[in-house]
């Protein structure tokens, strides 16, 4: 696993998976990200990212939960792994550190 850090979209997807807490699959993740970021996202992009994150070992998945709405097909639910959580935290820390160094913001606080 490369330690390259997370892309912005990857981070959003990871966060969405965390929020959904085991209920995250393609569509729910797409909607979650759309709700928070306010932009519209292609379903394919979500799928590709979910799989990439899984390949990196940041997510794990299992099959389950078919409904009539989807023609009886099962979903793939994603869950964050420990490594995934670590990455998220690391990303957050880097940002936090950098935020604190911005002089314009120091005085206003």
């Amino acid at each position: 696993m490369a330690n390259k850090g997370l892309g912005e979209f990857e981070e959003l997807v990871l966060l969405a998976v965390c929020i959904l807490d085991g209920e995250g699959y393609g569509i729910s993740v797409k909607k979650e990200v759309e709700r928070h970021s306010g932009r519209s996202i292609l379903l394919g992009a979500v799928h590709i990212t979910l799989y990439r994150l899984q390949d990196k070992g940041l997510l794990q998945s299992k099959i389950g939960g078919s409904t009539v709405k989807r023609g009886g097909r099962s979903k793939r639910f994603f869950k964050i792994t420990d490594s995934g959580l670590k990455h998220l935290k690391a990303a957050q820390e880097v940002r936090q550190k950098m935020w604190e160094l911005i002089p314009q913001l120091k005085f206003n606080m």
Partner: protein
Amino acid sequence: MENKKNGTPTLANWLASKFLKKTQHEEFLGDLEEIYRERVSRNGKLYARMKYWLDMLHILIGFSVLNPFKTDSAMYGHYLIIAKRNLWRNKVYSLINILSLGIGIGVCLLIAAYVYFELSYDRFHDNLDNTYRVIVEQTKDSGEKGSSPYTAYAFAETAKAEIPEIESFTRVFQADESAIVTDPESEKTINQEAASFLYADGNFLERFDFPLKTGTQESVLSGLYDIVITEEIAEKYFGQRNPVGKDLRIDGGNSSGTYTITGVLEKLPLNSHLKFGFLLPIENFWKQGNGGSVNRYGGWERQWYGTYLTLGSTAEPATVSKKLDGLLLKYEGQVLSENRGVEKTTLQNLGDIHLRSDKYTVPDYAANKGNLLNVRIFTIIAFFILFTAWFNYINLSTARSMHRAKEVGIRKSIGARKKQLVRQFLMESLLVNIIAALFALGLALSALPFLSSIIGKELDYGLFQIPSFWIFFLAVTILGSLLSGLYPAFVLSSFRPIGALAGGKIASLGNLSLRKGLIAFQFVTSLLLIAGTFLVYKQVTFMKNQELGMDMERVVVLKGPTIISDMPEVTDGTNMEQIREAQAFTKTIFDSFKDEIIAHSSISAVTGSRAIPGMSKNISRQDIRKMGEPESVGKYGRSFPIGSGFIETYGLELLAGKSLSEDMAKDEYVIVNEEALKAYGLGSPQDALQEKIMIGSKPRTIAGVVKNFHWQSLRDKHTPYVLRSGGGINVFISAKINTSDIEGSLAHIQKVYDSFYPGNPLDYFFMDDAFNRQYLEDIQFGNLFLGFSLLAILIACIGLFALVSYSANLKTKEVGIRKVLGASTGNLMLLLSKEYLVVLGIAVAFSIPAILYFGKSWLDNYAFRTELGMDLVIVPATVLLLISVLTVSRQTYSTATSNPVDALRPE
């Protein structure tokens, strides 16, 4: 396929089942269906389906075997190396492949450049979206219709004052008389065509984006004698010197005088419907144009001006034109007692002017009008040629595949998977396509000037300057590689290794009927193009050989003088006395000029006129009826004044009555054609001589009746013509020469002209040449067709050749056995080429309805047309048959004459 019931696109699902892994397939289709349902209920079915496709393609690209990001990039380097080696190894084959593809794409690019240029007309104006030209359509009580892009002078001002939606207006008037323009400092004098003078309102340069090189936009046309010239004109007169502030003298034309240059415009874009060299204030024309006679009738007479309106951003053109209709009724109704019927306006967007202006019954000053039909035809041809080229690639690569069988077999047996092989072959296709695309670009860029000269119209490189073109070009190249590469790739990669290695030859290589289908498509394309070429030439020949009802051979036409020395000046345009005096003076000089010209034995007739055959200029469209009939039955006819000698000079054939002679008083007599007899109910030619007709409100006596003549191209129907006696301004002087010593006659004419009209350069041309120039556009159209057909045939032949050599190769053994058993060479050649003759036959059958349909709709543009016979099918079919037999025979002959021992030995 199982998704019929839920409405998701079946094809998309099928693709997914082909390209996605089982586990992902289930999950993704589930997600897609879920979201699809939501979208159907929220945004409707069409939207949902489109989004479904979009998402599906996205996922397919992301996850399928095609995804380049899922494999090690080193692998791709390897594919590339193998692809290069393969291309290099089969140099001739690769060259043929790249050339045919490159030519195909190149032609397509050329056509795209032309189409883009035609579509780009006037798009450079910032105000494009809310600028409209006013079109007026008149419907007479008799139901006759006419439309024109001209309005009266006061129309625009009144409209702006009364209709709040109109933000601003600008009017133009294109001069209708040529003038001599002189730089008084250097005495440089050039006779400038009428079309190069454009009169416009002061805000013209604000409304239209013609950038000024020097001068201030707001004030360049503020003075009555201000003039703006273009860069080219400035160079002609002043070279490197700065022309601003200098004077130019204009003699003759619509308004002579000395003008001060206030600005210089950059070279006008080629794709502008307005073209001019000199821009003058329209107020100048209004106040003192045509000897001051322009404003004599008031602002609501004389529909001469092109009017452009800029509307507010929320205004609806339809609402505005309704209000304009009311305006016309209110103002023109009062002024005009003549029966004009109902006038309705439409607003034509600036962007539509170039391609959608062909229906006006009066000639448009935007003379370089485009032809929407041609643009459409060429777009279709471009696609056909592009597909022909791609199909060729498919045929060539599949035909080559037997040579690759061993390679595939070895690769497979050492563990290559199918998708790796597919990638390998796609890489080759990509490489060939990219090289071909580069070649095509070079070809298109270097051939564009050549294309310009064929179509007789300067083109620019506009297409190649927009970023979206490059994105599109890249996309088409990649799409093309996939389209043309996928089929061969799957055929090649599906060989069974044992078969491929053991026999060295594969019995069934892909679907032969598919490839025959592709060849059939290429044949159909070639047939259509050959038929198109043939039809255009046939029609042009037909028009040239048609009896015109006029004799234009050895008629020389001089441009009339613009300066007449010692002419009494007209100081007041409303003073009829002065105008008459000037006219009488002009006539006296012209009469003696005529006598002097005709004194020479070689010249049999001379006449002066405002109009000449082949041109619609200076012909008015007037409301004419038989005297005694009510106004409402009047019909439009074309009318123009002719001097005496006109009938003789142009050899019009009199059916009854006599030609107009010198002593017939001005304005009272007319000559009509047969069509006019019919239109106005004048009876037989003899009867007509007893009748009078009304032109507007003036009665005229019919002096003679002539046979119908083709004043213009045979595109036009016969129309009623009424030739009035009188002349006045001689825009053209025509002389009939009756000897073969043209040189001598011209020398005589030159001498007389110089002595009567000193200061006027002699400008002449021959009538028959000028008349045939009307068909130039048709001939150019035919030449283009010819060029495209040649290329399409070339590409198709290459494909055919490949296919035949492939199947000849397959049948080597069969041919060997037949030969041993005593078959003749001819027999064997027939055996080998038979199936392609069948394909050709099928192609001919398919193309017949298309040829007849397109041929008919093209010929419908012409009132007088050649008949649409079976020769239109037979000639192209024969041409194609000969060419394909020639292509095929080399290969079949060499196979049929080869030694059967060689063919049978391997076993």
